[in-house]
């Protein structure tokens, strides 16, 4: 074999603490190495051209590059050797940057370690075999989980691109959090007016199949061919018959049902339609409060329904859909702010969350757009907004900034002045984060044009004065003195947390999530919508806090990734997968049980049973190869022989 070794300086990243010329000199002594040289930037065009030229000139049949992490440039160099006529798997990479130069300063020790890593790579390469990818068909349908604004945008863009979309929404209506908002910053345009048309498009688009009040139960398969089980929750209403007329909601006697769409501000009926522009505009029965379902007596809705759509016997339904890729857009929830005793811990009805306040502002909300405080329905005159409630707070495990609270608080202060001209708003803040397009101008408007009093400091105590007011005590740290405000209503800018159940969904999707439950993108800057699982993309706040413009942008970005994937009729699998040596297999079944992807099946051959790897499903994790008691399963490009060759070399170094 004729091997060429290239040692990269990476400018001074490697050469600063590794003697690259010395490593190259050492490498010339290794078996089969016919050429070793050091290059300033191997990944740059001249560097790659030098590799290609060396392959031709020295008739190389294997290349080692000692440079950065394979996660960064392995695909680059595989393409380089392929261009020069070699198989892309006749290439090995030694990581002498992250594993050597960046973690140690002793140049001599670093040079020795780099030499050893190169020696190991050479030993592996001497045992490498050319591998070929196989191609397989793609099912050009996409599953989008979550129909908030990010999911809706992704769905519409995919559908417009000619892709069949399966859209699954946990709630009874699509729209997510944005549908609950009254107006949106920084333009103060009506949320329902800008989201509504998109929601209608979802309902009417021929390429979109919508499952509302449904959740993803199970996901199997792999990029190009996923199989999805969807649990369609019982709504006790036959949606094929329901026309959304609302007769049932008018007559329903269970009028004290908690209204989750209105964030529990005011009650609703046990059978209800979330809001006038709901999509689908279908009634849903809340089984915990329906008198027929809890006590077996009532049946009023069934009597008044003109189409006979009510079905108290309805059960959950499991639907199976086949798709080629998945976009997760599951959004967020608000943290439980009642841990803060200084804000009353939930005891005072006139301390509300910002999302509750949106419902109070909204014309389709429980107060029909008139700001009435929950305790006595009076119009508040002095309103205190408190920012960073559950954000930037390490002591409760939420050290991150929720990103959009500064902006919506400014918006709510502006709207308050519009609704009640003789009102006065106060905002307690730590820092104002307004770093979007026309965002800072917007917060300045709240202060300068709308007279909102911004107080730099925190609130220490809220208590009722017995005369219907709430006394808000805090500090103005710019003044260095305590301040006190007699408020009629307090609005808490409650922080964001990952949607409930997101870790469970991540496990179904086989993607990673951070310690707060947000899904992990493949690269925080360069692959913000991809995950480390092929064919699974992210959009919206499920990946990290972001506002509506960013969510919409990421929804479109995810759709671009879907359309890019589906632009190919066939996908190639990674040939670094397991395969079974039938001569050694004893059909013990251990590999079948340990495989996390269901990629191994039993097959019969000449009257005997054997394990067989489904090539397109195998992800090459290597669990089966280390489980097999016979050593009958080998992982291509990481075979026992290849690994032992590396270990042997290391032990002899």
């Amino acid at each position, binding site marked *: 074999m004729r091997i060429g070794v290239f040692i990269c300086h990476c400018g001074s990243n490697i050469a600063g603490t590794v003697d690259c010329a010395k490593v190259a000199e050492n490498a010339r002594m290794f078996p089969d190495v016919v050429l070793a040289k050091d290059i300033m930037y191997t990944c740059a065009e001249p560097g790659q051209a030098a590799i290609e030229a060396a392959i031709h000139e020295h008739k190389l049949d294997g290349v080692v590059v000692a440079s950065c992490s394979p996660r960064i440039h392995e695909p680059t160099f595989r393409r380089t050797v392929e261009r020069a006529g070699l198989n892309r798997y006749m290439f090995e990479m030694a990581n002498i940057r992250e594993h050597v130069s960046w973690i140690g300063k002793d140049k001599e020790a670093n040079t020795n370690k780099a030499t050893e890593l190169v020696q190991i790579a050479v030993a592996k390469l001497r045992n490498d075999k050319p591998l070929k990818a196989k191609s397989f068909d793609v099912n050009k349908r996409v599953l989008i989980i979550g129909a908030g604004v990010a999911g809706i945008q992704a769905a519409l863009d995919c559908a417009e691109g000619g892709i069949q979309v399966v859209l699954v929404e946990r709630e009874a209506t699509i729209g997510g959090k944005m549908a609950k908002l009254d107006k949106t910053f920084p333009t103060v345009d009506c949320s329902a007016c800008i989201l509504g048309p998109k929601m209608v498009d979802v309902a009417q688009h021929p390429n979109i199949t919508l499952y509302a009040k449904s959740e993803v139960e199970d996901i199997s398969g792999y990029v190009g061919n996923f199989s999805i089980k969807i649990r369609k929750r019982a709504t006790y209403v036959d949606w094929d018959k329901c026309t959304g007329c609302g007769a049932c909601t008018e007559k329903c006697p269970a009028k004290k049902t908690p209204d989750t769409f209105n964030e529990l501000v005011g009650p609703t009926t046990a059978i209800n339609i979330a809001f006038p522009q709901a999509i689908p505009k279908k009634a849903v029965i809340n089984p915990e409060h329906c008198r027929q379902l809890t006590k077996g007596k009532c049946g009023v809705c069934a009597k008044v329904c003109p189409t006979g759509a009510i079905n108290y016997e309805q059960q959950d339904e499991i639907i199976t859909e086949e798709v080629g890729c998945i976009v997760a857009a599951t959004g967020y929830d608000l943290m439980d702010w009642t841990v803060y005793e200084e804000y009353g811990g939930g005891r005072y009805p006139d301390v509300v969350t910002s999302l509750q306040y949106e419902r109070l502002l909204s014309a389709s909300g429980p107060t029909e757009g008139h700001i009435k405080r929950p305790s006595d329905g009076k119009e508040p005159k002095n309103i205190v907004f408190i920012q960073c409630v559950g954000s*930037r707070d390490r002591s409760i495990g939420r050290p991150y900034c929720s990103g959009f609270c500064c902006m919506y608080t400014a918006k709510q202060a502006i709207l308050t002045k519009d609704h009640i001209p003789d009102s006065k708003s106060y905002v307690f803040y*730590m820092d104002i984060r307004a770093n979007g397009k026309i965002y800072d101008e917007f917060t300045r408007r709240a202060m300068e044009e709308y007279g909102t009093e911004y107080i730099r*400091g*925190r609130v*220490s105590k809220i208590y009722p004065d017995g005369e219907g007011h709430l006394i808000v005590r805090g500090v103005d*740290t710019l003044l260095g003195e305590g301040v006190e405000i007699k408020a009629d209503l307090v609005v808490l800018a409650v922080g964001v947390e990952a949607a409930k159940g997101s870790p469970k969904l991540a496990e179904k999707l086989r993607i990673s999530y951070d310690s707060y439950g947000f899904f992990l993108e493949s690269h925080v800057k360069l692959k913000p919508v991809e995950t480390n699982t092929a064919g699974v993309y992210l959009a919206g706040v499920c990946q990290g806090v972001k506002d509506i413009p960013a969510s919409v942008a990421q929804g479109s970005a995810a759709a671009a990734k879907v359309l890019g994937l589906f632009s190919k009729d066939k996908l190639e699998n990674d040939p670094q997968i397991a395969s079974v040596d039938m001569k050694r297999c004893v059909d013990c079944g251990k590999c079948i049980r340990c495989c996390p992807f269901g990629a191994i099946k039993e097959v019969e051959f000449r009257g005997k049973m054997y394990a067989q790897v489904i090539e397109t499903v195998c992800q090459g994790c290597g669990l089966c190869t280390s489980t097999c008691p016979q050593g009958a399963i080998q992982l291509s490009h990481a075979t026992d022989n290849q690994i032992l060759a590396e270990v042997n070399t290391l032990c002899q170094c």
Partner: protein
Amino acid sequence: MNDAIELSRMRDTDFTAAVDAQSGQRISTCYQCGNCTAGCPAGFVYDLQVNQVMRGVQLGLKNKVLNSRSIWMCLSCSTCSQRCPNNIDVAGVMETLRHMARKEGIVTVPKVDKFWTSFLATVRKYGRTYEIGTMVLYMLRSMRVFTDVDLAPAALAKGKLGLKPHKMPEEGAEAVGRIFKRYQERANRQGVRA
């Protein structure tokens, strides 16, 4: 701005490091939200607010912080520690600063120091707190004879002010006295004020 603090000269990074080490807190995590100041029940008598004390420590302004009244007027109620979003034991930092100031011989509010000395003297002698003894010692030390005397009748009537010291069983008082002695010896060895 002739009276501006010249940071390049005034900044004492050793002081910041010493406060970190002695209090066991990471002052650099403070991002000046103001929760400590907002909740402080004694803030109205402070010359520097709690968040300003923390800022002074961050900037290494040793003289400004150790000469402040605030560190002596702190009630050690720990509301600040409980509210701090960054888990800083702010009351612990205030206590560390008092110790540091005392070791440096800076006691900006002597009567607080005198009250503590009087209180601890009774504990040293009797093993437990002795209210009347504390009062008398404090009056003698501070020359504030009539301070809070008006409260005495009510406190006496409610049995909150024992005329005799509380008794400790089994030579407890002597045991407590030995703790004080050991502490005094250690302070002498280290050459600091006990």
